[in-house]
């Protein structure tokens, strides 16, 4: 009966959407560095830790208020204990283990063995309890028992909790962990030297009444102080033999120090790219909108420059290390990721539809562009994809891959030449309007709700006073462009004015539209 109740309850929890959603929320809040609210919890916990240490320091020589004492001993401890329990809860799923066992046994037509399930649950939970971070968490709760004065020193364990909340500590730990074997070898070497030198110095010095080294502890203390090259000078060998031992320990100390330094430096050198990549991905995740350029060849370089001038953020993905280096030297955020691989986008951890304005497949290779476009399209049906087309015979393949806009430079050259030979002056005028370097520009001005409330018709805009030509009005809801719109044309929210003029005058005209709104 109890067994059935336990299994039913486990199934209920596993299928309960609200329970799973809650658990998922706490998992994100406590463990997912990419979760946007985690940083607030981290800041809160770090503040508690520093408050706690500040109180400890203060109370050494000054009396503290009772409320501060209770806050430090009880409130903070209880908060930390609650956090400990949450971490214990989310570390593994009890209900999932029971459900898995039930399904496994049912599938094999056996009696459901809950004992095995509980054994596994206990094993996993114990592995959490005995993990270093969990032990630190638990010790940080100890000041709750403040009557035991010694336990109050456990406040300092709260400082170790900082490792949990500051990413840079975790990075440092992971960097050092990459040289685990080397550090272990060094530790063995240092331990052997310390042990041998402690014994030797004790043997050489302990029987001399003038020597400060009289106990094994003093010998051990001297060894550590000497091998670390600190050398306080409070305990020194006075016998001839003892000084020879000191010489050996000093040389060994220099070797240990040099080896340690080189280990740390090489660990950082090896990991620096990885650390930078993690930081870059974190920065990308925070971006609100950007263009994703796949492939950084000549054309892409020019496009990136122009889009940057418009104030856009650009992210470059490429498989070629040299091109990525070029992108970085052009002050762009670039990653050595294959834009055709699904894994790259998973690593980036971005919302394609919300964050990416458009994906630009600008490799000078149709095969690579099709592959990238298909990968992106499989991730999002809505995202706008623009691609370069190198061979006209591949046009259909690229269209089939779901690319929204194809740019075939050869075709552009054909069209440009046609206009150039037919109407050179007109062509030049339009070319100037499109060019980034020209002073005269064509600009789209959005009619916001506020503007449309003040300027109901085209005639009220007053563009001529600002030496701005109104080429026409684009009605977005009808998808139609009204060239040289009549003065009586109604302006609606969401319309676009296409204006031509000097950049500075267009800016003034735009300001005028907004200022008038403000004045009203």
């Amino acid at each position, binding site marked *: 009966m109890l067994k059935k109740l336990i299994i039913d309850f486990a199934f209920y929890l596993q299928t309960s959407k609200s329970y799973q959603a809650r658990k998922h929320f706490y998992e994100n809040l406590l463990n997912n560095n990419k979760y946007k609210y985690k940083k607030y919890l981290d800041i809160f916990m770090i503040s508690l830790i520093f408050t706690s240490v500040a109180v400890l320091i203060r109370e050494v020589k000054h009396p503290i208020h009772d409320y501060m004492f209770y806050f430090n001993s009880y409130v903070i401890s209880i908060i930390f204990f609650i956090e400990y329990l949450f971490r214990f809860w989310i570390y593994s799923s009890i209900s999932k283990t029971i459900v898995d066992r039930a399904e496994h046994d049912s599938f094999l037509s056996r009696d459901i063995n809950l004992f095995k399930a509980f054994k596994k649950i206990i094993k996993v939970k114990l592995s959490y309890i005995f993990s270093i971070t969990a032990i630190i968490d638990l010790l940080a709760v100890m000041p709750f028992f403040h009557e035991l004065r010694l336990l109050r020193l456990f406040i300092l364990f709260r400082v170790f909790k900082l490792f949990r909340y500051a990413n840079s500590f975790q990075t440092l730990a992971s960097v050092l962990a990459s040289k685990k074997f080397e550090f272990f070898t060094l530790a063995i070497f240092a331990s052997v030297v310390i042990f041998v030198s402690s014994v030797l110095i004790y043997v050489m010095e302990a029987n001399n009444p003038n020597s400060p080294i009289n106990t094994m502890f003093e010998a051990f203390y001297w060894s550590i102080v000497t091998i670390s090259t600190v050398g306080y000078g409070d305990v020194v060998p006075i016998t001839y033999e003892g000084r020879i031992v000191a010489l050996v320990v000093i040389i060994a100390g220099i070797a240990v120090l040099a080896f340690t330094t080189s280990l740390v430096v090489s660990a950082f050198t090896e990991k620096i790219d990885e650390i930078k990549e993690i930081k870059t991905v974190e920065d990308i995740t925070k971006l609100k909108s950007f263009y994703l350029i796949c492939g950084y060849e000549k054309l892409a370089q020019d496009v990136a420059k122009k889009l940057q001038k418009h104030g856009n953020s650009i992210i470059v993905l490429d498989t070629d290390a040299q091109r990525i280096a070029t992108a970085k030297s052009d002050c762009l955020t670039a990653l050595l990721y294959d834009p055709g691989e699904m894994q790259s986008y998973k690593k980036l951890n971005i919302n394609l539809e919300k964050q990416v304005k458009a994906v630009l497949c600008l490799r000078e290779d149709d095969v690579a562009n099709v592959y990238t476009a298909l990968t992106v399209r499989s991730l999002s049906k809505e995202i706008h994809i623009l691609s370069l087309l190198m061979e006209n015979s591949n046009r259909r393949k690229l269209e089939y891959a779901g690319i929204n806009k194809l740019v075939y430079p050869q075709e*552009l*050259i054909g*069209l440009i030449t046609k206009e150039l*030979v037919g109407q050179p002056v007109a062509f030049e005028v339009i070319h100037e309007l499109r060019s980034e370097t020209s002073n005269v520009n064509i*600009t789209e001005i959005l009619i916001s709700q506020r503007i449309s409330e003040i300027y109901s018709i085209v005639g009220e805009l007053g563009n001529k006073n600002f030496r701005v030509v109104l080429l026409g009005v684009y009605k977005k809801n009808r998808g139609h462009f009204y*060239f040289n719109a009549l003065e009586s044309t109604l302006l609606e929210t969401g319309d676009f004015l296409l204006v*031509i003029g000097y950049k500075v*005058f267009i800016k003034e005209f735009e300001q005028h539209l907004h200022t008038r709104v403000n004045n009203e």
Partner: protein
Amino acid sequence: MSDTTALLFGFNNYSIEILKNVENQYDNVKIYSLHEEDTKIDNYTIGHFDLSDNWQKMEDDINIEKSVAFCVLEETAENVFLVISLRSTYEDLSIIAVASHKEDANKLLMAGANKVIPLVETTADIITNMLENPISNDVLHEILYEESALKIAQIKIGKESHFKDEELSSIDWSHYNGIIVLSVMHKDMKSEFIYSSKAKHHVIQEEDVLVVVGYEKDIQEFEKRIGSHRYVSWNNWSW
């Protein structure tokens, strides 16, 4: 002898696209390739040349003053050499060349090309416009390249035009419904935006060119009313 001739140097995707777009505008089209294996495309026989050729003979078949040469060799150095060869032989030939970058474009201009299209910069401009200003890009594309009712035209001020000797800023353009005047080009100057300070005090003279946008029938009406005609010749015009 043919009146107008398009000379296409280089046989590749660029020349094929240029051919598609300009073949109807010229009485005669000649294609030249550096490679012997290129022999024919559609109805055109491909001629062959090498860079050491003396182009003097070409004068016998075509009217140089009414011809335009399109230099689209894939190798920039070869293209520059071709342009300089043509210019050294024919001072009056109009030469349009395609360059991959702006740096190459400068060399081609120095070699004597009248107009150079820098491929990367031009394509990048178009892509940026497509993304950042999609509406204006579509409108300009339609005006320039598509067979739409909206057109851009160059109107040359004739002897009889009643705009002659008038100051540009004194003309009330709103009388000419359906027409937007974008710029004016004096025969000695670059095109100037209609509202620029230079254009403002410019006195319209014979041979000046107005660049206007409008529907075909409105442009025709405008031509009639101002007593000027459309200007379509490109020859001997350089930037």
